[in-house]
């Protein structure tokens, strides 16, 4: 009788611990996913218009600058229009999920491009310039509490995403990223992104205003993105189509 009670007690204890472990793991995964969603909302509204300057800095200090106007809607639609320099003015890029196109006014028609290419040269590639929400592209594989920051281990949802894995440090107070390491499927570090200089963009949006990147593949080179204006904006789905690409400037 006593033996039976003891066996039941041991079984219940193991079951309780096992269930507690499962729930704890689920809670941790849920926390990571929630944190990643919060990171997205803290970086940008779901639908917005934005002005950015992109600067490529060469090892000798010389620079090349681009100014872009972008609009984004939901998790999978984004358009960027080049306003400067004159040689790039009027070019626009469209992203719908993993599809990307480039429109060049002289060419007069959109051509498909890939996320790994770069329409501006330097360290930023097309997926950096047309970045969707992190939670739209990545699942949270793990989360580590590092005191003042969380370390999120993110895995690409499909192999069409430019970086297979991200290692994202998130500031606990502001829930915005501070550093993101981007890895290829082979495990090679492709680039590191640094979010800097928090700024109040109005309408309750306080986020880093500078994004820097460097890469072991481009030794000595650096690229910087400066955010100047981010506004919520209601946009029709039809704006994110090939037929509209030549008219993006009319949205401003």
């Amino acid at each position: 009788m006593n033996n039976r009670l003891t066996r039941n007690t041991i079984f219940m204890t193991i079951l309780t611990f096992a269930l507690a472990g499962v729930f704890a793991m689920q809670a941790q995964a849920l926390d990571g996913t929630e944190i990643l969603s919060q990171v997205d909302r803290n970086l940008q509204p779901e639908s917005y218009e934005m002005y950015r300057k992109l600067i490529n800095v060469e090892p000798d200090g010389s620079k090349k600058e681009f100014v872009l106007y972008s609009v984004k809607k939901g998790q999978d639609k984004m358009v960027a229009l080049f306003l400067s320099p004159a040689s790039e003015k009027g070019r626009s890029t469209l992203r719908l999920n993993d599809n990307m196109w480039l429109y060049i006014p002289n060419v007069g028609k959109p051509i498909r491009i890939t996320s790994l290419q770069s329409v501006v040269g330097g360290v930023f590639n097309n997926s950096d310039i047309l970045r969707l929400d992190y939670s739209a592209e990545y699942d949270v594989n793990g989360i580590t509490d590092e005191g003042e920051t969380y370390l999120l281990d993110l895995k690409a949802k499909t192999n069409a995403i430019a970086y297979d894995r991200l290692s994202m440090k998130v500031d606990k107070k502001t829930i915005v990223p501070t550093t993101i390491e981007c890895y290829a499927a082979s495990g090679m570090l492709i680039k590191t992104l640094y979010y800097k200089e928090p700024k109040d963009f109005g309408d309750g949006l306080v986020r880093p205003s500078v994004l820097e990147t460097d890469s072991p593949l481009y030794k000595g080179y650096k690229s910087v993105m400066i955010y100047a204006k981010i506004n919520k904006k209601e946009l029709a789905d039809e704006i994110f189509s090939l037929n509209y690409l030549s008219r993006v400037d009319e949205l401003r």
Partner: protein
Amino acid sequence: MSRTYYNGILLCFLAGFMLATSPCSAQDEFTFDLEEFEKKNLEWGGYAEFKWEHMDINQGSAFSLLNFMDEPRSTFDRYKGTLQIDGSYSYGKTTFNWILQASGQQDDIGWYDTADVFEAYASLRPSPLLTASIGKKSYKWGKGYAWNPVGFLNRLKDPNNPEEALEGYITAELDLIKSFSGSLQTVALTVVALPVWDDVNDDFGEVNNVNLAAKLYFLYKDTDIDLIMYTGNSRSRRYGLDFSKNLATNFEIHGELSYTPDQRSILLDSDGTVSLQEDSALSGLIGIRYLSENDITSIIEYYHNDAGYTETEMDRFYQLIEDGGGQLSGPVIDTLLDKAREISLKGYGRPQPGRNYIYGRFTKKEPFDFLYLTPGLTTIFNLDDESYSISPEVVYTGFTNWELRMRFTSLQGPSFTEYGEKMNSNKLEFRVRYFF
């Protein structure tokens, strides 16, 4: 004397314009003055360009005889200045767009200048779903990079410079877009009316007709698909289909197929007579764009043109010129060469007049960490007569708003082949372009 004087002034003006509009100071680090980029009603820009070309003439070739029969030469030099101004003026939901281009050219024979309105049209956008436009507009339908068999309203582009602006046609256009969620993401319909009257689009085809063209676009399962149709009496009716899809993050595939039930073309018969043939033509293109791990972008396309000339048909044309150029004078000879010139303009002399081609373009961005330098290689291979052109080039864009390009083209092929009978055996080209 006075002509040379004015030519000098024009070239000096172009050079001066390029210098006067060049940047004079570097900007401070990491500053962003947004006011500079606020939207204005009037937006404009463009470029000024200077180009020098040197050609070694393929003496004795069919096209050197046609072009230089009276004044044979071994080399040919050309200097050309071009100014393109584009812009738009927006007022509410209406926008007026334009592209204007003027150029002056001095070569070993003489001076030529031209000024054209490439585009000038007004568009009305009552909602993002609907846009109506009227005026002169350029069309670039099709997914191919070098050729577009479904480009029923396109001007013929130069496969060696496929990214240049081209003159449009005067049209009225309606554009409808509708987005969806699910596998079918976008549907768009473009309908174009293109009239051909005296002095209105009269280089498109037969006059006194209003032609219609329509393009129905789908983005379905991440694939771009266009169904295209043209109908009208200025040209024969034609139907087309094209597609484009990314198979991986670094690999894109595209294709075009067109069918013309009654394709008309000028044909030189075996007895030397010229006739107008009418036959069905099925033309197609299949191509890829691939980015390799070492950052080389490759564009490769195969093009079949049913409306092109066979090797035998091209041989007859080359033979006609050889017969015409075989003797130095005489009315019969002049007649033969006149006939050759005439049919050259009507089809035999167009770029890539044959039936089967391979196009390849390979560019390597910033080799050896040399930022903003892009070396490239372009080749066009005639699969029927096995002649080809090959063009290595270097493009440098390191100075803001400047583009420098050096290109050398070699044309290879024996007699009675396309590239063996071109006017020149090679061409060296240097181009400086300043954007403003």
